[in-house]
């Protein structure tokens, strides 16, 4: 299920719309993840305040995803150091990448109801899956 040339085109075109609101979108996705999948809160026990307004982490995540879009032809290379971070330092169970991806899709749906067509959905889903895979690269 690797990304075709058409998939990459669709992802880049859609992400051009997304990048202007990336911070809010990321924050909303993380906030939703923490609410809808409370088991993910276990990774943020060092945060004092888990209220929705304090999801600045979402901006960090989105910046990395936006960077991945620009390096879509070599996601493994682009995400190498982030993979090491998640594998050795953060030790996030990689099953959670899917969870955050889902919440990102929900926010993209609410934010871009007309642009997030089934065609865009499948390309973005494939892209986020590829990002998750690249992020898992150094785990074992």
């Amino acid at each position, binding site marked *: 299920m690797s990304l075709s040339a058409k998939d990459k085109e669709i992802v880049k075109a859609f992400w051009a719309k997304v990048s202007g609101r990336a911070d809010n979108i990321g924050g*909303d996705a993380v*906030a*939703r993840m923490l*609410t*809808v999948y409370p088991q993910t809160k276990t990774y943020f026990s060092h945060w004092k305040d888990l209220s*929705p307004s304090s999801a600045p982490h979402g901006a960090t995540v989105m910046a990395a995803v936006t960077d991945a879009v620009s390096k879509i032809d070599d996601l493994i290379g682009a995400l190498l150091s982030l993979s090491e971070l998640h594998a050795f330092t953060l030790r996030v169970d990689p099953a959670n990448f899917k969870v955050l991806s*889902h919440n990102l*899709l*929900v*926010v993209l*749906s*609410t*934010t871009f*109801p007309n642009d*997030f067509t*089934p*065609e865009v*959905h*499948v390309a973005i*889903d494939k892209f986020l899956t590829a990002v998750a895979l690249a992020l898992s690269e150094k785990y074992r």
Partner: protein
Amino acid sequence: MVEWTDAERKAIIGLWGKIDVGEIGPQALSRLLIVYPWGQRYFKAFGDLSTNAAIMGNPKVAQHGRTVMGGLENAVKNLDNIKQTYAKLSAMHSEKLHVDPDNFRVLAECISLCVAAKFGPSVFTAEVQEAWQKFLSVVVSALGRQYH
């Protein structure tokens, strides 16, 4: 047995009240067939599914989408007894239709995304999303329960 908070019940029933089965059903099913194309294996009798446009314009897909979405009504009306309510339907999906139950999970995802697009972030808040996804996961579990 599933424990629902008052807030969850309110959210589920409230959201269901806003949902037009004839609109969301067809959207969700055609999205499933496009995003997870291996799902098309169950719909060989539905005619042309060869392109996204064909799927989205296919009247049999639309009708089936309405049927499936309408089936959620029973779950909303029987929140405290979803397992029993869907026992026969579960057996049918296993013995007669031979549907891989993972498809229930992905259809639930597609339904949630269509609902999210339709109602936006002020209605489909994180709390409503939590309740709605919990509801759908109970339905998904009930539908898979009679497989053997």
